[in-house]
């Protein structure tokens, strides 16, 4: 940065008019920095890249997504083909383990376990992402309206905020899995139900988070400064307050992905998932495997490991993002 200070005639304070002097000072006091605009996000990305746990988390997720996207085209066997039964290798009380051909052996219905694990990743990923998006969308909408109303809306705004937040509180007071089970039971077991159920559970978290952070932002000086320039409230809310309030929500979304995957697995495990039980899904595989724990514990261990590692990846990345975006932790 030393060398980028413009080299004009040598700075001397004695001669020259006052105005020129001041301009010169202004020029010198400017931060000379050849980077283009460094936004909060870019700055956070830079910090993320230096954080080992973020790297590990991101690596896990990249592998997971690759497996989910590309894996199903590369699997050695059809995951729904019950070849083990057809060929008579599955007998009561004995399920063959790993072999050169079937790397993780067969499952209880004679299907290739490895192929099912890979294909199962896809459904887990889709359900996890979609349900988080459902929760995020509804939660951010409610939280955004409540936050804007409470922060800028005066007396009526506070009323709107109260009503919305009491509804959210009601959702929050229900145990999440129970809520998911009730939604699933109400709509009948299907993949969509699982996604809605898991999504609804995360609505209150997003709503509360965004609202709280918006109310905090509404009292900041730059909001006052913007209103002193006559900027409309709607614009202040959308283009000033929301961008400043999103960081915790994004972090929470990453963390929610981890919980969503676990909850989806839990719902499948409870039999409220995809009614087509031939389609591989990690939670369902886990549920099926419990009967065969004494015969072939591997059948439970593989999908469980998948769930755990993926959830860990999302959590590591989420926590690292929280650190990177937290203004208090910035030097």
């Amino acid at each position, binding site marked *: 940065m030393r060398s980028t200070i413009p080299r004009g005639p040598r700075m001397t304070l004695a001669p020259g008019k*006052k*105005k020129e002097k*001041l*301009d010169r*000072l*202004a*020029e010198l*006091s*400017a*931060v000379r*920095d050849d*980077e*283009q*605009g*460094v*936004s*909060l996000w870019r700055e956070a990305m830079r910090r993320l890249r230096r954080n080992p746990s973020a790297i590990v988390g991101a690596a896990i997720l990249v592998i997971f997504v690759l497996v989910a996207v590309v894996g199903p085209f590369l699997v050695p066997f059809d995951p729904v083909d019950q070849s083990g039964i057809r060929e008579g290798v599955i007998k009561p009380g004995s399920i063959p383990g790993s072999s050169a051909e079937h790397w993780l052996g067969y499952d209880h219905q004679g299907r290739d376990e490895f192929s099912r694990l890979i294909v199962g990743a896809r459904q887990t990923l889709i359900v996890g992402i979609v349900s988080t998006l459902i929760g995020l969308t509804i939660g951010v909408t409610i939280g955004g309206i409540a936050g804007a109303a409470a922060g800028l809306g*005066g*007396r009526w705004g506070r009323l709107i905020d109260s009503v919305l937040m009491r509804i959210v509180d009601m959702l929050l007071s229900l145990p999440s899995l129970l809520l998911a089970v009730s939604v699933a039971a109400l709509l009948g077991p299907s993949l969509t139900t699982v996604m809605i159920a898991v999504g609804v559970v995360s609505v209150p978290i997003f709503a509360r988070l965004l609202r709280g952070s918006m109310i905090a932002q509404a009292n*900041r*000086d*730059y909001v*006052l*400064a*913007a*209103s*002193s*320039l*006559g*900027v*409309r409230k709607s*614009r202040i809310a959308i*283009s*000033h307050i929301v*961008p*400043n309030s999103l960081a915790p929500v994004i972090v929470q979304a990453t963390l929610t992905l981890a919980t969503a995957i676990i909850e989806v697995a839990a719902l499948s495990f409870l039999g409220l998932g995809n009614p087509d039980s031939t389609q591989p899904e990690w939670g369902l595989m886990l549920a099926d495997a419990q009967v065969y724990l004494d015969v072939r514990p591997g059948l439970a261990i593989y999908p469980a490991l998948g769930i755990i590692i993926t959830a860990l990846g999302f959590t590591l990345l989420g926590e690292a993002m929280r650190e990177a975006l937290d203004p208090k932790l910035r030097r």
Partner: protein
Amino acid sequence: MALLDVKDLSVTFARRGQRTVHAVDGVSFSVDAGEVVGLVGESGCGKSVTSLALMGLLPRQRGVSVGGSAIFDGTDLLQLDQRSMRDVRGRDVAMIFQDPLSSLNPVIPIGLQVTEVLVRHRDMGREAARKEAVALLDRVGIPDPQRRLKEYPHQLSGGMRQRALIAMAVACQPRLLIADEPTTALDVTIQAQILELLKELVRDSDTALIMITHDLGVVAGMCDTINVLYAGRVVETARRKELFAGRRHPYTVGLLRSIPRLDAGRGEKLTPIRGSVRDVLPWTEGCAFAPRCDFRVDACLGEPPAMTPTHTGHEYRCVNPVPLSQPEEARA
């Protein structure tokens, strides 16, 4: 007819179970086009509340009440509804805040924040607004404005940020500018630049400027008229020269004495005003400054002192003013 005529402005904050606070208690002053008027006083004397009241930016909730009138070009700013006030703000009256870093939105580039005002009040398209923003940044002395537009507040130096804020405030050529301690957060060299810039803007565009500050040094170089506030009331008002040459109110004298001076002898101590702004008497029980005043007499208590006019327009609110003959540090 003055551009802005503030009459009897009062702001009270009432909270259940607590004594009502009279933050501003009958303040009157007027500002002409092209004039620089100073509101001077310690923290808590009501300067900032006055400015927020004029801008209509005080929180609109129960317990906050604003009285009096502020006639700006024929309309009473205090009577305008929120919608019309929003149209006035930024277009006719604009404000510059104390802390430029926190007054700028950290996640939005400077350019967007400047163009926002132009789009709002001058119906400009995006491209026209961007061009105008470049011109504005250039006008307030920000070098390389094209590039600065894309930068974020934390990338600018303190002085640059205040310049950017000033650019936003003057974007629509307002007729009245309120600067609330515009240089407090800046170091001394930058202070001088910013004051110079403000002076220039006022001179070039005939804008009226209300300077709010606790620093009589700032006021000395800039203001045409100075109002000294204490505990929500104006205690002394005069043209700049008269005030510095013939200040009468003990509080003004105290403020002047507590400014460090270059020509003071080495080791000479500053003379602070005794006590703090918390040691006030309610105006209803006498002079609010009496508990801290060196010139206190019995007449100070009991009845609130009225403004004493002089033939020059210099007025002070004191029953026992500092005698003119006393050779205090008089400088303008």
